[in-house]
């Protein structure tokens, strides 16, 4: 198997855990634990959205 293909699952998991940025410049975590970590580190509150898969 091509090395890139072997890396796909790991890359996908990484992409899902990284914050996405929307048009307003807001970073959206898709990983809840990562959001908790950032909130702990920054002292900010959390705006948590549950939504159906678009």
């Amino acid at each position, binding site marked *: 198997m091509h090395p890139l293909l072997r890396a796909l699952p790991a890359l996908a998991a990484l992409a899902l855990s990284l914050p996405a940025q929307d048009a307003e410049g807001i970073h959206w975590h*898709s990983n809840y634990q990562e959001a908790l970590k950032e909130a702990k580190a920054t002292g*900010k*509150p959390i705006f*948590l*959205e*549950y*939504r159906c898969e678009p």
Partner: protein
Amino acid sequence: MSQYVCARIIRMDEVDIAHFEYDRNNPLYFFLMNADEQIYTRYGGRDSAAVDSYLNLDSLELALQKGLDLHEQWKQGKLKAAPRPAPKFAREYPLLVERTFAKNQCVECHLIGDFQNIHRQLDGSLDKKKHLWRSPDFKLIGITLDIPKGLVVKEATGPAAEAGLLAGDLIRGWNGTTVWTFGDAQYAYDMVDRNARQVKVRVERAGTEKELTIALPIRWWLTDVRWRQSSVDPRVYFDDRPLTDDEKRQHGLPAESFASLVRRVADMAKLMKTHELAVGDIIVAVDGVDRDPDVHTAELYLRLRKKPGDTVELDVLRNGQRIKLPLRTLQMSFRK
């Protein structure tokens, strides 16, 4: 928004559904909280008419500001930690696992709500008035909100007006729970015992607080649930309306009966051969039962007291004759 850490969760696989409990038929729902998972307030909620009846950018901004205020209070030790329920996860529902995890399909919010109810039906703990008829409608007790202003009352009529609620009042407490947003208030209302006959409401009016007691009418919890596509809701494929007292007298039916007039028959009834009711029929009893304290129509009796798939015998008045007709209910299936 820059003052918040934002998270968007679209799969419920790892979510503690006991802590983040809400009416799962909201396709969009928000919690404002902190790193210790203390929930300050909710934003969301809906009615039978639409998913976005109560979603509004102005009220969202108010909620965000309140979240920041409460976070400041938390940091200063001025807020008490709320007790957290025992954790619960979607994978604890075997039929949901079979339906989603095992097929590598998305564990959607509405599926969680539905499969919780399926399991409740199996173990006998299902209370349809509480678990199926979720999110009671404030308008049924005469409360119309000024939606952009959050919980400011726009108009009070009926039971709310009789309790003394006025336009301009700001709702701050519902049934003993402090509420900051419509999402908080609707959730607090949802937690009220369905047999309750009154609810305490705290309001701010001209700088002072008042507590009002709203008398809850019979069936205050009743909303149109057909859009929910719930597996525990028997599909009956007709609409009816309660007979008036005069109509009941005219037909020699007891005043307390749930006799109802069939107004519409869905094409599905013919297609699936579930019943042969016709518009204008009067249903006077279901399996020999003609009254129920929670019920005012035969359709509601079927939805509330029967399981999907049950077959019943209807007593029907048609053209002055009393006849018996079978009716088979169906179970809803999902799109994916």
